[in-house]
């Protein structure tokens, strides 16, 4: 991973976007812009559309209505974007080979791969486990490896879907430290989480989703301090949004 000047692909702009799945509207009338800067955190209950929004922003899902543009263009191969799924799938090879594979897929020169693999393993604290089959790593280690694999693409924008779900506090802290580190280096992080505490710790901006719509969005400190909608007030107060 390298420190870089402002990213390409940004801003990512959603204009009146609707996404359907099996005839059901998963996202409806979404208009939002992701710009360079501090992490944007998507919060909301299960089924609110966080994952779908991340996938659409990554370019893995096409909208049924509306437009998504990356730096003004509707067609943008995801060469400068990377995503870490909630349940990442490890390839059947070692931890180091998983990263080497992502580097090869991203077109990294063969001569650079070993050095970059070592650097990424070190960044996520897995250098001692480089040779271990990736599927034999613990849940937290697999999440970190998945993050390293995403970073192997040298992304300008990094999408993280519930990266700490079901991890213990130590593993959660390890992931959050990496997220802060990559954000500091200029990578735009867009992340979905259930965990309000995590959102408070990491977010520069917050987007609250409910039933496929954006309920409220804005700077994290003001949204947490003074939510304006009833749904946001309830969610931030820890009440159930159903």
């Amino acid at each position, binding site marked *: 991973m390298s420190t870089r000047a402002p990213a390409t692909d940004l801003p990512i702009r959603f204009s009146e976007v609707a996404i359907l799945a099996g005839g059901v509207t998963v996202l409806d009338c979404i208009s939002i812009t992701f710009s360079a800067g501090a992490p944007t955190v998507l919060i909301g209950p299960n089924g609110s559309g966080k994952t779908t929004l991340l996938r659409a922003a*990554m370019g*893995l899902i096409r909208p049924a209505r509306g437009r998504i543009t990356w730096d003004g263009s509707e067609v943008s*191969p*995801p*060469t400068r974007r*990377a*995503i870490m*799924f909630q349940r*990442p*799938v*490890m*390839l*059947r*090879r070692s931890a180091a080979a998983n990263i080497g*594979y*992502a580097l*090869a*897929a*991203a077109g990294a020169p063969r001569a650079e791969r070993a050095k970059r693999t070592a650097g990424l393993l070190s960044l996520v604290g897995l250098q001692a486990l480089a040779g271990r*089959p*990736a*599927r*034999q790593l613990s849940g937290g280690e697999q999440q970190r490896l998945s993050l390293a*694999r*995403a970073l192997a*693409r040298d992304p300008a924008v990094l999408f993280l879907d519930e990266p700490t779900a079901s991890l213990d506090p130590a593993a959660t802290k390890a992931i959050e430290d990496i997220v802060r580190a990559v954000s500091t280096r200029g990578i735009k992080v867009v992340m979905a989480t259930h965990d309000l505490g995590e959102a408070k710790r990491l977010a520069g901006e917050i987007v609250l989703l409910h039933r496929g719509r954006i309920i409220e969005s804005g700077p994290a400190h003001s949204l947490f301090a003074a939510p304006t909608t009833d749904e946001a007030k309830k969610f931030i107060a820890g009440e159930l949004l159903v």
Partner: protein
Amino acid sequence: MPENASALHLVLTGDPTLFAIVRLSLIVSLSATFIAALIGVPLGALIALTRFRGREPVIVMLNALMGLPPVVAGLAVYLMLSRSGPLGSWGLLFTPLAMVIAQTVLVTPIIAALARQTIEDLWLEYREEFAAMGVGPLRRVRTLIWDARFSLLTALLAGFGRAAAEVGAIIIVGGNILGFTRTMTTTIALETSKGNLPLAIGLGIVLMFIVMLISTLAWGARRAGERFSG
């Protein structure tokens, strides 16, 4: 029983007749498995990774052909290679090559069907990560075949086991000619009917040893896969 003692003696002393038969059997079955793998693995991968009209009937047919009766396969190859058949002019009937062809017909659907299932399962697991990593089509196929290699090896061993143990197809197209097309299974059938039990039992012991060896190798392949690849 004296037959058992004589059979063991044949095996342990390396009886030349017995081992010539074993050698021919292994050459025929290994050749058939090799050719079936060259056809079956790419065919299975193609069906697993492409979507086309009639794909599901093709999969059902392929799975059904795993149970193709050897005598039917033998009959089909016989009709192709017999003097009046479309390939009769090649003069292959009652040769080891005809037996290789018949066993290839039997084994290819087994390898193709198992490879299709294996690669498709892995593809369903990997496809989102492939999309996220921007992996191109050729690299995807290479990765899937490589990552599924231990399961595919098990499929090849299953195919070889089927080839080595079958008798119906090769007796029809090979003719069971002494010293030329006589294999372990056809010899066992013939010698048993003649009452020459020591040779039949000796070959049975060798055949069982091979079957057990295949099972052990298949188990070892899976264990190695779990250990080295996860």
